[in-house]
């Protein structure tokens, strides 16, 4: 199940323009090269941006998103568990930031459980299936225009139908 790179811009609206440019610059490298090494470099750059703007939600959002993107494409890679832990930590940090869009948090949580299912469908399918559904539904309830949630939900349905 491959998830295309989606840049949810909602988080960046209120953020510093320079930070947005840096994030865009970092993410754009993945358009040319989506190898595991390129992902890791991108995530490392996003963490550097996060260190520059420690109170901002956007770098954390993209750290989580790109960590999950890598994990869903490489569910059993050597680095995947570490990146899943990065994603969990970034989501926890986002929840601490008052202004974070709750729809985005729900989307990331749904994505996290979705990766767990991709890693071990037999065991985790039954355990996390409803969580994935509920988080995407909640994300779309809170923001019906959340394209990332829509696209991930669609991918999840496609994946389920293939099973």
């Amino acid at each position, binding site marked *: 199940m491959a998830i295309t790179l989606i840049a949810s811009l909602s988080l960046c609206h209120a953020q510093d323009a320079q930070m947005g440019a840096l994030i865009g610059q970092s993410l754009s490298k993945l358009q040319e090269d989506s190898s595991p090494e390129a992902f890791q470099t991108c995530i490392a750059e996003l963490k550097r941006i996060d260190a*520059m703007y420690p109170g901002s939600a956007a770098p954390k959002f993209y750290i989580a998103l790109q960590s999950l993107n890598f994990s869903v494409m490489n569910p059993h890679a050597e680095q995947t568990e570490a990146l899943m832990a990065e994603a969990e930590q970034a989501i926890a940090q986002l929840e601490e930031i008052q202004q974070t869009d709750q729809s985005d948090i729900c989307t990331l949580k749904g994505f996290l459980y979705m990766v767990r299912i991709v890693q071990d469908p037999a*065991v985790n399918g039954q355990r996390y299936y*409803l969580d994935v559904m509920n988080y995407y539904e909640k994300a779309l309830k809170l923001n019906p225009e959340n394209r990332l949630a829509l696209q991930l939900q669609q991918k999840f349905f496609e994946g389920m139908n293939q099973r």
Partner: protein
Amino acid sequence: MKHFVTTLILALTTLCGAFAQTHINGTVTDGQGPVIGVNVFVVGTLDGSITDSLGRFSFVTRQTGELTLRASMLGYEDYSTTAESATLRDLDIRLNEKAASLDEVVVTASTYSIGKSNQIKTMDALDVVMAGNSCGDIVAALQVLPGTQKVGENGKLYVRGGDSEECQTFVNGMHVLVPYSTNLEGQNQRGRFSPFLFKGMSFSLGGYGGEYGQALSSVLPMETTDVATSDKLGVSVSLLDWNIGGTKAFQRSSLSFNADLTDLGLYTKLFPDRCDWTRPYRKLSGEAQYKVDLSAKSVLKTYAGYDWTSVGMLTEGRKLSMQEHNVYANATLRTQVGSGCTLFAGIAESAVLSDIDDALVSGDHYHNFRNEVHLKVELQKRFNPLLKMSVGVEDYIRNSVKTYEETGYQLDYHLFAAHWDAQVRIVPHLFLNLSARGERVSYNREWKLMPRAMLSFVPNTRFQASVMAGRYSQTPEDDYIARGRKEIRQSTADHLILSMQYGSARTLLRIEPYYKWYRRLPLLADGTCTADGYGYSRGFDIYLESAAFLKNLTVTAAYSFNDSKRLYLDYTDLRTPEYTSRHNFRLTAKYALGKVILGLAESYASGRVYAAGTTPFYNSLDANVTWLLHPKVIVYASLNNILGRTNIYQIRPDGTPVGATRDRFFYIGIFVSLKNNKAYDISNF
């Protein structure tokens, strides 16, 4: 010309500055070897690199002068150094492992969690339904865990040598006065709540914090599901119960209902038992929930449930007839009131009205009404990753009326309690939970202060060891308070528990020895009740869960040893309570075979000691099958006690054995989702 030269020099200087580069390189280790994947960078820039398989890094930055270099990796403390750029070469960086904070560590000592959590033992509602011999009953499902006691004549929870009343149930933090559906003496009672109500349960076998009180042995806190995101409607049918439930989801809230009728009339006709029923067991239940997300950090949950039970049987020449009305409702609000600060407020009402005709002799009438209002407020504050605290107050307002022929009593009292809890990481890997609970009972104005503590050593994610000690209290049952009045004081139990746990991805092993000292237990003598009873309970529990033996197979094994003695109620000497067995063993296996899930459970308990003799051992081999027939249809069937052993539960004073009313129990049910966008979701609530 002079102006041109000046301009040229300035331009060259600017160009040289523009292309000045500093080469930064080095190695990152953690004392044991190179660390791979460390993000090493110049703070405030994107310049940096990731360490390779030998821990090496190398990059070029255009920054000059004094720079701050940072090395960052999950699980390690950040490393930072500020120095002249030219000196940042051939660096030897050593990272220190980051000790887990309170948020990252879940101490599981003496607790089994069910639901979605980071804790080791995880089952969801479907697992509860599919547990070997549970038939969808939470209480029966919990009895596969160590520390629980098999007491077949009522099916209630008995934990580590404690009576069933010593285990108390809480829904969203609020107390439930009677968590069981009722039945006649000697008949199995089920938990009154559906497993689908809850997203998580946390069954503590002792050593719990100050938040919970009025439970000498154990607590079962359960958390209801969150606001539903979509509409649901479903029905289920079996040989003995019919159910319909549904949910309407709104933008930020959801409203659910559930109605259930249990009638053993048809079942008893198909599979007769050893009882002479005059009126088959019937229970009509209705439940409703309204939950609303008031904001991103505030949630209001309300629940109301009503059960009506009716049953009658012919026994010893009497036409025993019973009816019960059981109401439970609660409302809780949890909201964030500041940074890291959460406020909880709740109110719960429990009311149980029971009437029995021909209770002891023909023509008599027994009437009992019990009511409890539970009020609670709690404030939790996370000061930093190393310290959390909570304080709370609560009040239990209780009244009960009991009449039997010309005798009876009316009892009104309340119990005020306050608690304080602190969780602190003393040093890396060492955690301390300290709590204190104070209680005052109005009927004898007695104050009681109970300290509790747990020290945990958590060196890594696989192993943890804890030692717990604390004092717990509970008011005796209303009958004994009514008899003893001011003489009867709260019973206490002092717990000392050691817990050791090892868990890998697919295997969990836990060993817990414990010792409990009971004091001030109710003791009956000459028609009055005093608080002169006492006793002890000691033993150990071993629990193993593994999914490592075979793909799609999960096996659990639980063994409990208990040595318990007490002088209480009508005992004339210190002796083993009738409900305890010295040895309890449970083995379960669950195997998924495509869309069919097979379950097997074996339960063994050694004999129970009565004044007139000891019962034979208890043994039951149970099997079940769940068939995911269609995304909207699930079929479940189970057969308890396949071997058909006639289990004996009691020995009467005249030596007559009293056993199960039927040897085997067969159940088949079909669960259908009429409206639900999720496959295999049989929860309509």
